[in-house]
């Protein structure tokens, strides 16, 4: 049998030259006149080792990384096809401590299988959730999801089963499943990795959602910044129709479900669910007033279950293993696992799927290995551009929706962005306001105008101009934006801004400890 080599086709691996590595391996094989089967898998999520090349040996898969195309001749010399020793040799992949310590439910197959092979997907446990769902009533499906404790992974953490129950209970000629694949938060890439590494599992989750709420049509709204992902999804949709997973009769059940892939157009606010629906309808991505909720009046006015990629991707495991197994993981009201994403200035960045309850410090230091620059960690932002900045002294906090909210922070989509001690938090606060100004949909004045004013006020504070007055003004502005904005873009931009001010007052030219008290200022005029 010809040797099998895995070279990820994940966008992150490709950004580090994986295509060249795959070509070099083929070239080497041709030169040695051997037949090598190169499989383009998803990423295992150890980003600092990408491209991570795996070879199938009698003892299982062994890994080499990070491999550059120029390393490939040396790998052949070292007999890597038989797991030969080489400076890049990492050992058996699944024994790598980073992977061995994870609890991969949603990402069980990502990096393991050929993402486009329906057969490999089935052999590796794919589709078992759908097998179960096809035998169940819609009510039982919704009940199972509710019982698992699954909450939305897109940011708001709303219980998925409850949303589905509303859609199920709303009669309509047509209902929709909409998958939010807009993944706009900086520091996040779990949606992308799941879609590129195991697209059939996302489709499976959408089909189960369709069976649960009575929808026959799904849309995936994919951000335009993910062209690699778009290619994978298009190919996978064809594959799924050929395999009978999608179509007029899902797996011969007589029940229809199909999916349309749509591309966004570079707007962050279109990740907000109602703006996303407007965009899908071909309009400007402006946020809608609620009620009505999308679950009742959603896409094209019809009841719509709108969920994040990872939410939908978690559903198959819940149906396959039962709600109790899922619920057994996690803490408090945060049940199950979350694929955390370690990013920014971090030595070992990538994807860590573990149950809720892990501490932020453990993610940053035990998995992440501290900063990439080797300097001390100064701040960590969790949950994207609307998430608070936490100081290095406050990382001993469990990843749990409620524990984070207590600290004025959010878990959001699980992105963890690390900054070393060279960061200027006043500059980051300014950026938070600037980002809000750039991405505001324009519907409410506090967001549209307030964010631009916020940039100006922070500029003045940074320049030392009338600091006490300007800090007070910034607080007022934050309060207005928080209380009078229609959606979380305007409504939560204050979180990164005020947390920066509170924890890092010295960056604003204030006395340490003065950030939460505008009266106790150092300097300023």
């Amino acid at each position, binding site marked *: 049998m010809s040797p099998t080599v895995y070279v990820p086709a994940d*966008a*992150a691996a*490709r*950004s*580090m030259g994986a295509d060249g590595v795959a070509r070099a391996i083929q070239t080497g094989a041709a030169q040695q006149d051997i037949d090598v089967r190169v499989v383009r898998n998803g990423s295992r999520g150890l*980003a*600092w080792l*990408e491209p991570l090349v795996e070879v199938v040996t009698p003892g299982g898969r062994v890994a080499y990384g990070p491999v550059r195309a120029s390393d490939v001749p040396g790998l052949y010399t070292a007999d890597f096809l038989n797991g030969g020793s080489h400076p890049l040799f990492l050992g058996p992949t699944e024994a790598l401590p980073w992977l061995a310590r994870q609890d991969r439910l949603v990402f069980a197959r990502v990096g393991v299988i050929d993402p486009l092979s329906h057969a490999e997907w089935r052999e590796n446990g794919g589709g078992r959730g759908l097998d179960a769902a096809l035998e169940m009533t819609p009510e039982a499906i919704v009940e199972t999801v509710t019982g698992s404790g699954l909450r939305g992974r897109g940011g708001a953490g709303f219980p998925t089963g409850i949303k589905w129950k509303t859609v199920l209970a709303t009669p309509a000629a047509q209902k929709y499943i909409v998958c939010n694949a807009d*993944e*706009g938060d*900086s*520091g*996040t*890439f779990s*949606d*992308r990795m799941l879609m590129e590494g195991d697209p059939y599992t996302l489709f499976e989750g959408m089909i189960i959602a369709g069976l649960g709420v009575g929808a026959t049509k799904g849309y995936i709204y994919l951000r*335009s*910044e993910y*062209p*690699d992902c*778009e290619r994978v999804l298009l190919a996978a949709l064809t594959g799924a129709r050929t395999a009978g997973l999608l179509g007029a009769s899902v797996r011969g059940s007589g029940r229809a479900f199909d999916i349309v892939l*749509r*591309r*966004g*157009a*570079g*707007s*962050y606010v279109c990740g907000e669910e109602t703006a996303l629906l407007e*965009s*899908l*309808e*071909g*309009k*400007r*991505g*402006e946020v809608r007033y609620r009620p009505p909720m999308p679950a009742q009046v959603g896409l*094209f006015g019809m009841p719509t279950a709108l969920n994040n990629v990872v939410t939908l991707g978690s559903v198959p495991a819940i149906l396959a293993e039962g709600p109790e197994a899922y619920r057994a993981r996690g803490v408090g009201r945060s049940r199950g696992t979350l694929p955390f*994403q*370690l*990013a*920014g*200035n*971090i030595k070992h*960045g*990538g*994807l860590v799927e573990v149950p809720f309850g892990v501490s932020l410090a453990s993610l940053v230091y035990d998995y992440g290995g501290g900063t990439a620059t080797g300097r001390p960690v100064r701040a960590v*932002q969790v949950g994207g*551009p609307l998430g608070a900045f936490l100081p290095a002294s406050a990382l001993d906090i469990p990843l749990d929706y409620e524990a984070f909210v207590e600290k004025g922070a959010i878990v959001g989509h699980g*992105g963890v*962005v*690390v*900054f*070393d001690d060279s*960061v200027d938090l006043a500059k*980051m606060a300014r*950026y938070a306001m600037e*980002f809000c100004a*750039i*991405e505001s*949909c324009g519907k409410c004045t506090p967001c549209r105008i307030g964010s631009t004013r916020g940039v100006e006020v922070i500029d003045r504070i940074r320049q030392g101009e009338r600091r006490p007055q300007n800090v007070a003004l910034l607080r007022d502005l934050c309060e207005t934006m928080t209380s009078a904005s229609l959606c979380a873009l305007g409504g939560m931009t204050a979180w990164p801004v005020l947390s920066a001010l509170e924890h890092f007052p010295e960056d604003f030219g204030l006395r340490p400890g003065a950030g939460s008290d505008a009266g106790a200022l150092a300097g300023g005029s």
Partner: protein
Amino acid sequence: MPAHSHPATSPDPVATVGRAITAHAHEPGGLLPLLHAIQDELGWLPPEALPRVADVMNLSRAEVHGVVSFYHDFRLKPPGRRVVRICRAESCQAMGSDALVEHARQRLGMEMHSTRPDGGFTLEPVYCLGNCALSPSMTVDGTLHGRVDPARFDEVIDEMSPLPEASRTLACTAEAEKPL
């Protein structure tokens, strides 16, 4: 095909718009796919195409313009022959994307948010490419690059093969590509 990569040949805009209309005009909410289809082929949305789009979609011209102007991706001016997008979101900032932007401006001799007068490059920011574990990131003509320090930036620019003659018609001026 990504919205910002160039076709190898220069298609006939009228035919492109016609094809996009045939493919998407009847799709529910088909305006975005239709606009993407035009821009995928032409690299931008020629303003003269928009009235026709408005007509077939049963929308006013103002409505179509409202949609086009809302989304950062849509271009009403032709981009340069190469489109460089540097990520400016938090994770990439944590890894020095400000310095990278500065380097790119120097190296390409241009400002952010602009197209060079010779039509060689468009340089613009992007807010997260989903490659945050390998920050800083950028794309060149839609191809993603990770861990881009100034040296890597120069390598990527230097390694780029010359563009086929046909796509040069997209340039603002007919001037040939100058050595940088």
